[in-house]
């Protein structure tokens, strides 16, 4: 059994689950479609790398700072969304990938193009975590992310986001301060992504500007949409499928990206709501199995 391999793949899958769940707040609830999520991911990774390598903090001491930093940066990078909407916003968020990447490359404080290496494994009671331990840590954060995000899905904040996500004009008439909630969405989403970034950096042990490019952002969004935007189960499942698919297709080596690109397109074509989105095959089948009425489903789905 290649257990280390499985745990490694599992760890990265977990990290991507955190990312998709975090993107779900921004894109699934608040409908601010972002193709720049890897930028927040990158900021988390770099923040943790710099705090641990340059300032000698431990992973655990750095983590709250990382969350703080990414939240703040989320607020800042969310500002354009106050002026710009829809496809204009999508394109601006693409820009975040390039701008953030360039900043890391340009300033030697961030290691420039030589990156930052020698990022330590987190320690647990004085012992550095091994592969299994790190997997456990990741799992813990995945569960925390899912639980907190599940709680959030039942709050007024989520409802407000869904409302202005669909119609800002009407949402204002409901007393919703759209600008504030947009920033909330960016900040929350970015904070989670920061944790994912920190995990990634400490697991891989090095960060380079090109680790977190535009194609990463695309992956994250594709995972969310494939799984089912607006649902946490969908976000988690999408990350699982799209992370495993190319990994599972290794047997066909050369053709794997062709096939997984094609499969992605087909799956979304046939299940536009996402594999586990509202009204998808799987969900409907599941509901039928439980013999539940549609109206009840509507009730517990805010």
């Amino acid at each position: 059994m290649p257990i280390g391999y499985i745990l490694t793949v599992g760890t990265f899958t977990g990290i991507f689950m955190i990312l998709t769940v975090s993107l779900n707040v921004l894109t699934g609830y608040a409908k601010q479609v972002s193709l720049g999520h890897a930028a927040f991911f990158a900021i988390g990774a770099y923040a943790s790398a710099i705090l641990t390598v340059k300032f000698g903090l431990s992973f655990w001491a750095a983590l709250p700072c990382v969350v703080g930093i990414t939240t703040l940066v989320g607020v800042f990078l969310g500002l354009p969304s106050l002026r710009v909407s829809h496809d204009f916003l999508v394109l601006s968020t693409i820009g975040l990938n390039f701008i953030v990447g360039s900043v890391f490359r340009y300033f030697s404080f961030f290691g420039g193009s030589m990156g930052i290496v020698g990022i330590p494994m987190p320690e647990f009671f004085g012992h550095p975590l091994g592969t299994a331990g790190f997997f456990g840590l990741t799992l813990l954060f995945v569960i925390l992310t899912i639980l907190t995000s599940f709680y959030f899905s039942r709050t007024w904040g989520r409802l407000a986001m869904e409302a202005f996500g669909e119609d800002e004009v009407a949402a204002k008439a409901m007393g919703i301060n759209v600008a504030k909630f947009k920033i909330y969405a960016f900040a929350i989403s970015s904070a989670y992504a920061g944790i994912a970034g920190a995990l990634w950096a400490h697991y891989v042990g090095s960060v380079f500007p090109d680790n977190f490019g535009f194609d990463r952002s695309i992956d994250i969004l594709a995972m969310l949409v494939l799984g089912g935007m607006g649902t946490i189960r969908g976000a988690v499942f999408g990350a699982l499928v799209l992370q495993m698919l190319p990994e599972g297709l290794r047997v066909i080596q050369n053709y794997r990206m062709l096939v997984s690109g094609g499969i992605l397109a087909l799956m979304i074509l046939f299940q536009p709501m996402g594999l586990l989105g509202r009204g998808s095959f799987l969900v409907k089948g599941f509901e039928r199995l439980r013999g539940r009425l549609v109206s009840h489903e509507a009730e517990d789905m805010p």
Partner: protein
Amino acid sequence: MSLLVTEGLTKDFGGLRAVDGVNLVVGEGEIHGIIGPNGAGKTTVFNLITGYLKPTRGKIHFRGRRIDGLEPHRVVSLGIARTFQIVRPFTDLSVLQNVLVAWGHRNYYGLGPFKPFGPAKRKALEILEFVGLAERAYVGAAALPIGLQRRLEIARAIALEPKLVLLDEPAAGLTEEEITRLKELVLRIVASGMTVALVEHRMTFVMDICQLITVLDRGKVIAEGTPSQVASDPEVIEAYLGAGEGEGDA
């Protein structure tokens, strides 16, 4: 006592003066009608009051407080709710959730956004009961026919617990029977302590229910008074009601 007062309210769109020095007084507890030809500026007045547009000139006072220039959500928090002429329900949400969004307006400050909304469902259902949409609570709002979407808009407005409700053409697209029910609804809203100002073209509705009517034409107030005063005003008949209309309809 006057709840809402506008002074010389004016709005220009490029070269077009859509609202021109309107002085409007809406008294507490009244049902105030605003009528006038298409393009007279009625919806624009509502947009100015609710903060969607900034006046070019003029002031708006609500309960003695200047509110012109405030953001829409601030206006809501001060106690003014509105509906839209072209309905805008949140179609991805269920009818119940639509009302919840409005009912939650007190929770959109401070730590409120991080409180669960579950406990408020009962209250939202009560409001739906009040407007007669209770049995459709779990349906997606998109599937409602136009008339019921109008009702949903009213439900949301009530859920905001405002002092003043602005209704923009609430009777458009309703049958006479439904208009009768709408009248009842509006009367109940007023009875529960709110004030209503409405824009409407269906005279059967306006004449019956309003205590006071302001008539706008080309952005200016051309008449004001009780329904019968207004309906017999020759200028109003000429500009708006047309021959043979008006009185007969009321």
